[in-house]
């Protein structure tokens, strides 16, 4: 089985971005390029799966060295393949959705939007396949830069403020904490490569704990409290951007860094052995609970979903911090499971906004009659986030639950269960009220207030249908993901 060289996964979206920028005057051709690139990228990333899984290959590419022994290196490994696979797989429905949303909503600067989107995907590929900390940092920052124009897309005062928060938190954490940790690692060990079992073997436990703190907090995209404020404020961006942030690339990059650094820089055993690492467990647990409680108080649908994301991300951080194979497996699975569930929810929120111009949870009562398909997909996404079978989210929560027990933290299992109940409380009433309560009475002249509301444009519906089906499929066929995570963290010994 042949596979592509890993750098091709960056070249495809990069070239795509350039062509998109040049085709600004021909929107149909421009969108065709986006879709073609998304399809090509999916094939390219897809070809890497059998190579890694069945042949044990680690396709690599070495770029220029910027310092002696420090260069751009790509190397495909299973954890990165999960993240890259999710991003590549979701780019296609997200593009489809973007076309429907941006046109249906008559947004301006669409060329910039699609070009920056492709650049973001290229950065995500670079993060996923980074072979050392330097490469990881380069593309992590590139992702922040490429998404900045997307977050500030509307150019309003509110969007600019969100943009400032966005770069402030993301660059603030990565440039000060993460880069410090990377250079420190380099001065201590002479390498920044990712290696199975970690590279910090000779570093004293105290210093290892400091580095652990710098890396974990330095990955601001993981939105662990108190570094989460940028995420809800970035909701001001168009909905496809929210999908990119919450599901396809950005926050997943944050938790991916947390997982990857835990496994390949510290090593699972090192994380488990240090008492100085336990604080992260409690920080993640606190984030999970607080974010879920805040989500319940939000009437704005996208804000509610944003806080839901903050909570769900800390599941993955928790998995990394538990320091056992089950935790890594659960975290790795949750990257994919949460992505499919949350992108469905955001697609639905955007569809409701485009079709019905509603943004508040309280306005959605009875909407299920007008937009049954959308609300059904919403219910599917919600159930997956909650972690109920037959949806993908059940698997990751199952493994995370087992991981807490194996690590001897039964209290954290209770946290996970409470959080699931909170998820039920803030997500499920939305589709239930939409379907089973009647819409508010109109002013009499036009019948019901929801008169004239139809489903969103077809591309949007196709996209959210696909991702909802994806959530279901992930429950019945999780084998591929399970095999990938077991490659990283052997289970069941």
């Amino acid at each position, binding site marked *: 089985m042949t596979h592509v060289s890993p750098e091709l996964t960056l070249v495809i979206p990069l070239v795509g971005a350039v062509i998109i920028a040049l085709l600004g005057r021909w929107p149909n051709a421009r969108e065709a390029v986006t879709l073609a690139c998304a399809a090509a990228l999916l094939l390219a990333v897809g070809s890497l799966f059998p190579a890694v899984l069945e042949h044990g290959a680690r396709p690599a590419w070495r770029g220029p060295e910027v310092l002696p022994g*420090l*260069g751009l290196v790509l190397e495909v490994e299973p954890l990165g393949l999960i993240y890259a696979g999710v991003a590549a797989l979701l780019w296609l429905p997200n593009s489809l959705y973007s076309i429907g949303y941006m046109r249906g909503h008559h947004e301006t600067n669409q060329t910039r939007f699609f070009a920056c989107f492709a650049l973001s995907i290229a950065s995500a590929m670079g993060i996923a396949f980074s072979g050392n900390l330097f490469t990881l940092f380069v593309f992590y920052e590139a992702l922040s830069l490429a998404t900045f124009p997307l977050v500030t897309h509307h*150019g309003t005062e509110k969007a600019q403020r969100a943009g400032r928060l966005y770069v402030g938190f993301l660059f603030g954490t990565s440039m*000060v904490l993460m880069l410090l940790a990377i250079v420190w690692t380099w001065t201590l060990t002479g390498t920044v490569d990712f290696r199975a079992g970690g590279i910090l073997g000779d570093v004293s436990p105290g210093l290892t704990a400091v580095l652990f703190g710098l890396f974990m907090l330095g990955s601001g995209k993981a939105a662990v409290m108190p570094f989460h404020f940028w995420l809800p404020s970035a909701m001001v961006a168009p909905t496809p951007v929210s999908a990119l942030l919450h599901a396809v690339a950005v926050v997943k990059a944050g938790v991916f860094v947390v997982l990857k650094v835990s496994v390949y820089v510290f090593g699972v055993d090192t994380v488990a052995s240090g008492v100085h690492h336990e604080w992260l467990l409690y920080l993640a647990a606190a984030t999970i609970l607080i974010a879920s409680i805040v989500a319940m108080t939000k009437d704005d649908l996208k804000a509610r979903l944003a806080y839901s994301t903050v909570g769900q991300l800390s599941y993955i951080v928790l998995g990394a911090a538990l320091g056992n194979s089950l935790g890594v497996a659960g975290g790795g699975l949750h990257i994919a499971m949460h992505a499919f569930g949350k992108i469905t929810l955001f697609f639905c929120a955007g569809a409701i906004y485009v079709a019905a111009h509603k943004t508040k949870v309280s306005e959605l009562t009875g909407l299920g009659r007008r937009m049954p398909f959308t609300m059904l997909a919403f219910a599917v996404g919600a159930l997956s986030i909650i972690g109920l079978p037959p949806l993908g989210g059940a698997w990751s929560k199952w493994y995370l639950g087992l991981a807490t027990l194996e690590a001897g933290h039964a209290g954290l299992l209770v946290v996970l269960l409470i959080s699931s109940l909170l998820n039920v409380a803030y997500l499920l009433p939305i589709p239930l009220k939409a379907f089973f309560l009647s819409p508010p009475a109109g002013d009499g002249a036009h019948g019901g207030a929801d008169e004239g509301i139809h489903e969103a444009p077809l591309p949007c519906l196709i996209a959210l249908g696909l991702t909802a089906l994806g959530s279901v499929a992930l429950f019945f066929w999780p084998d591929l993901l399970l095999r990938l995570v077991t490659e990283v963290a052997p289970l069941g010994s």
Partner: protein
Amino acid sequence: MTLTPQVPALVVLVPLLAGVVIGLVRHAGLAWLLASLASVTTFALTLALAARVQAEGVVIYAMGGWAAPTGIELRVDALNALVLALVAGMAAVIVPTSRASVAREVPADRHDQFYALVLLCVAGMLGVTATGDAFNLYVLIEISSLTAYALVALGRSRDRRALTASFQYLIMGSIGASFLLVGLGYLFLATGTLNMADMAVRLADLHGSTTVRTGVAFVIVGLSLKMALFPVHQWMADAYTYAPTSVTALMASTATKVGVYITIRFVYTIFGHELSFVIMPTDAFLLAFACLAIVVGSLQAIRQHDVRRLLAYSSVAQIGYLVLGLALGSALGLSGTLVHLLNHALVKGALFLAVGAVVYRQGGATMHELTGIARRMPLTAAAIAVGGLGLIGVPLTGGFVSKWYLVAGALEAGLWPVAVVVLVGSLLAVAYVLRLLQVVYFGEPGTVAPEPAGEAPASFWAPALLLLLGSVALGVSGQLTGGLIAAAAGALAGGAP
């Protein structure tokens, strides 16, 4: 007779004599042509000299054939060969392309004076860099400074405040020169020599001398003024803002760099590691002010409305980085300083050229005049964007490499708070650069100032993009930076003055 052995002298003499000749021609076009020829020739000479240094090692040239302790000698090693090529290279890029900008900002009857002064200033800086004689160094510093005061004052036809800026610069520059002169006087008293190599040898036995210590302190303070190290940096903000833009581009990329080079020379080769860092607390003094420069300079840059002033305060911060690296007293730190020296020269030169394009089209360079120019001036905007990223030190620009070295150097020395300052500094740079880019790219054109008629002539953006290409090359090629590190190690070993 061949001229090859005379190259070290010609590097200084060509611009010096050209400056004198241009002062006599009284014709704007001819002055520009001569100045361009001279600056390109000088650059070629510095490259030849650098090649010779690489092949033969230290090149020593006795001026007028008088041997060292009596006569004045030029001494060129890997370190100052690099700085010579940098200064001459920036002049070779900026002078020939400056015509449109100078025509817009300097009265036509002053063009001959303008180009004469530019070349004399360049000659002064090259002499300062090449010389191996301490008093000669002082004289040449004054030549480059006096011409710089005059050049800043030439900005007066655009804005009268250029005159006060020039006067302030003159006062501060002269105070700095006085400190330097007094310091050199003490050192001469103690050692009885003005030759740098000689002085280094004799100082080794005089570490206990109060005279020597006083001399060291005066020299360091004088150099701090010349480098515009915080808190004696205020002159630079005004000078950069009101000078003709091409003068600012040249000075921002060369003058402060030469100051840093002299400081390295004094601290490492003349005083030596022990006198500088063990007996005298030069490192603590410079580190403290470097950290303050980084933080305060960046914070002030964030608040500026005029982009030239913003870039000037950014330079205050960048000088902080340069001084921080040399004050770490290690190979890592010095490598950081050298990479940063080169990178910042390229980036700041490019940014001021781009700002010159805006001044050319818009008549000013405040945030208002830059609003939304990306639509009509895409290449100028691109130069501002890439240059801005270089200031931040994003990966794959030279700024990242130098930042890496500085942070590693600070950590190696056990000074993690200094490492944090370096990183916080680049975070603050994100703030002022993104603010600038938001205005340039996302500002609504035509709302606060008229939209530019079109892209500026290629003589603005082409050299800017060329310089930025150099910065990116520094950022991606380990080989380029590897050569610099060798130079750094050489200076640290104190092989040649």
